[in-house]
């Protein structure tokens, strides 16, 4: 939580919340997907940096729920609701899911970007949260920053002008 006008940073396989006038950002999204869920009226937003699509693929006893699309998104939604967001008002914006290296071998791990995106969309639709806009795929890294005041998601790519979705 952050109430001053600062930038909340979210690391890999992590999530956090922000209330306007602060912004929230995550850097260097490759195959990872950045999911922003927000309540535009309450001006509160959460950002999750998702690494993998499905927690059932985990070989750990104790998993980090923030790492997987199917577990991180419910965590994010709960934490938003606990902090004043309203379930019906929640909207989402997503970015990332690129394929950074064009592997020749067809290992499933190598298609992880698109699979992450699919898993995120699936989970969001399961929770009845509509995706307002997205910028996914390709083979470029992205840094994203969300401003709950305006509801704009700023996207920065290497050697490209920043743009908003």
């Amino acid at each position, binding site marked *: 939580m952050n109430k001053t006008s600062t930038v909340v940073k979210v690391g890999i396989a992590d999530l956090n919340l922000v209330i306007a006038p602060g912004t929230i950002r995550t850097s260097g*999204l490759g195959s990872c997907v950045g999911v922003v869920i927000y309540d535009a009226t309450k001006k509160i937003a959460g950002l999750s940096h998702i690494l993998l699509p499905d927690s059932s693929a985990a070989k750990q006893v104790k998993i980090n729920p923030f790492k997987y699309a199917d577990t991180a998104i419910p965590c994010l939604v709960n934490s938003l609701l606990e902090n004043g967001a309203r379930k019906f008002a929640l909207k989402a914006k997503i970015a990332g899911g690129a394929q*950074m290296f064009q592997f020749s071998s067809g290992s499933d791990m190598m298609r992880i970007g698109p699979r992450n995106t699919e898993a995120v969309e699936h989970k969001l639709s399961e929770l009845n949260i509509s995706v307002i806009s997205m910028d996914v795929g390709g083979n470029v890294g992205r840094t994203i920053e969300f401003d709950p005041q305006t509801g704009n998601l700023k996207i920065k790519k290497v050697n490209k002008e920043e743009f908003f979705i």
Partner: protein
Amino acid sequence: MEYLHLTSYQKDVLKEIGNIGAGNAATSLSKLLDKKIEMNVPSVNVVGYDELMELIGGPEEIIVGLLFRIHGEAPGTVYLILKVEEAEYLVRQLTNDQDFSLFEGKQDKEMSLSALHEIGNIVTGSYLTALSDFTKINMQPSVPYLGIDMAGALLTAGLLEISKVIDYAIIIDTEIKLDDQVKEGIKGNFFLLPDPESFPKIFEALGINDHE
């Protein structure tokens, strides 16, 4: 399996592996450029993903990354990481094109990128050969995959296998310095990220069975 508490002996073994690999790689690079190459003692670190990014200047740092998958008995991933200027310097040395720039200029970059791939092949090949000879474990590098982008985006690709099992990566880091009297020099970083199931094999090959 628990890697967070590597014994100092195990760390030394991994360090030595890095040393041998780097020695070979430095020799190859030295022959290729006809310049003296210095290597420093590598470090072995157990780090979280975010720390890994910080090691090379943060997730947004633009880097040139050459990724190789290791096939064979002990699969894993190797990264050869160069700063943009370093990669440009290497290409200039190799192709005698003093104006080469990765992002500017309109000249055809195919030749230069191909030179980068080749540098990666030679250096990584000799690195893996050393590892393979020392451990008697068969390791074959894949073709190089070149990416020029944010460090966070490029490095997570190599962490995916490991991230299903642990939230930390063991990095056998190796720095290779190009040392001549001129100002410009390069400092390449090797990251060797063995897949989780490869550690027992590596330790066993080296006669350390108490890795549990």
